[in-house]
């Protein structure tokens, strides 16, 4: 009886593992297919000139350097804005645990922010940053809009990371005569850093690839040369892809460039992730023997 049961359980376990393996396989298959497809169509176009030159001949030749740079600026700007704000918000919510309706309102708005469609952020950015604050269609407006988009991801990752810091090391710090502020800044935040970086990775991936939020706030189909201030309009990879596929008069060349740009965008996002993972791993090693 029990032998049969054990046998059954063995089979169930094997089936379970097989199922999990199949799911993982499918996942890898999808990712591989996307990479393969994009690479097959885009790789041929990518060369040094493509990465370093400005577009020529109504976007049918030359490179996409301004778009790469634009995406870099926008993403960097978004993180510079949302990281301190998001971490401050998370610290306030978890460490000072203030009570009352303000916190509830804050929590609810953060959760809702995460669910807002990105095009709505675009409209918000247009109204507030572009028009009301007068930043115009610019890197600044686009970064701020993307920053708000990234905020909920960063806040929840930071909150999770802060909550995971054991209470015992907060007590250890306080017992040495440190103030709560010193404890947060020098003990809790460093310990939470790897987790916070995860949030940054996730949001970089999201921000760099977004099109809708920058549609009305930052991006231009074509800008001559490179941006020279935060108030300049920019080209950006995701919008560039969109524009190449929907506008212009040379669909064939444009499609080729669009695929190459897509491959580039993918590579960019993946390498940022790798970098962040590497930093996180190093941090981990420093902390956990």
């Amino acid at each position, binding site marked *: 009886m029990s032998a049969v049961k054990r046998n059954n359980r063995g089979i169930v376990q094997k089936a379970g593992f097989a199922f999990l393996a199949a799911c993982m396989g499918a996942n890898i298959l999808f990712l591989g297919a996307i990479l393969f497809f994009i690479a097959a169509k885009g790789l041929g176009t990518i060369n040094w000139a493509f990465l370093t030159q400005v577009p020529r001949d109504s976007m049918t030749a030359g490179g996409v350097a301004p778009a790469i740079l634009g995406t870099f600026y926008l993403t960097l700007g978004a993180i510079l804005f949302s990281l301190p704000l998001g971490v401050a918000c998370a610290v306030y919510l978890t460490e000072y645990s203030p009570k009352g309706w303000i916190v509830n309102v804050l929590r609810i708005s953060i959760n809702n922010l995460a669910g807002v469609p990105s095009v709505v952020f675009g409209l918000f950015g247009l109204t507030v940053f572009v028009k009301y604050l007068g930043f115009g269609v610019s890197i600044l407006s686009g970064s701020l809009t993307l920053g708000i988009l990234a905020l909920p991801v960063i806040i929840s990752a930071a909150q999770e990371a802060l909550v995971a810091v054991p209470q015992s090391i907060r007590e250890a710090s306080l*017992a*040495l005569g440190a103030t709560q502020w*010193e404890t947060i800044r020098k*003990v809790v935040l*460093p310990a939470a850093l790897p987790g916070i970086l995860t949030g940054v990775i996730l949001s970089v991936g999201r921000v760099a690839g977004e099109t809708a939020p920058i549609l009305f706030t930052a991006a231009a189909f074509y800008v001559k040369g490179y941006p020279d201030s935060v108030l300049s309009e920019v080209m950006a990879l995701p919008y560039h892809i969109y524009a190449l596929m929907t506008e212009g008069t040379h669909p064939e060349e444009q499609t080729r460039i669009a695929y190459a740009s897509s491959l580039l965008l993918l590579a960019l996002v993946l390498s940022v992730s790798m970098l962040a993972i590497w930093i996180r791993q190093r941090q981990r090693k420093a902390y956990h*023997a």
Partner: protein
Amino acid sequence: MHDVNIDHERQMGMEGFHPALVRGPVGINLNSLGEADMFGSEPKITARGVNFYYGSKRALNNINIAFAARRVTAIIGPSGCGKSTFIRLLNRMHELVPGSRFEGEILLDGLDILSPACDAADLRKRVGMVFQKPNPFPKTVFENISYGLEVNGMTDKRAIEEKVVDSLRKAALWGEVKDRLKDSALGLSGGQQQRLCIARCLAVSPEVILFDEPCASLDPISTGKIEELILELKKEYTIVIVTHNMQQAARVSDRTAFFLMGDLIEEGRTEQIFKAPRDRRTEDYITGRFG
């Protein structure tokens, strides 16, 4: 007044066990003043009429006790009797529990440490704490100790280095970690981690060190090292140690206090508590009849 006094008769009764204990001016002082036996000096800490509540739940009832300077006082008692609650009042760690509240006063060299006028961070520099589970920071061995120094305003690198080495020596850890200062403290063994926590505490030069079951998670050899260390440290520091382990209390302490369900049942010299307890409940506890 205190209700922890050792009265004349009992003090005399104790003489039968340890004649050496009541000799000289100490014994005379004691008996004539009706004060707890503080080995001839002023008590370092005096708690008077201390009550403590977690919300509406009362955890300490009218605790009156004094702690002798440069001596070890052990607090014993069954789980949940309020030992940690009491010891955490001595450096205001109770403030971390929302909805808790106290009554009474605790004096450190005459300073009322529970009054709002006393700054908790300043107090904790004077009254350090070592916790039940070793809780090193997820930083390097060196940083674990330099942290407290920096927090206390030390900026000179050389001075910090010296103090780190000095603290590790005092905590009998230097030999084991001198080549691992830049490694994570989390890579040390449990016993080493606990001694690192002691070193960290020593670095900020406290006057009092509170130990809350410091050996609860350690093996016997590590426990032995910590006990040796405590005996060494009492030359310079006033020590209060909570322990579950009666042998440990007997080995390291000069005075022992027995808590039960939020009450201080009995306290006195350790020999007296273990050899001639006055209260039936103390006797039951130390003989293992309950707990």
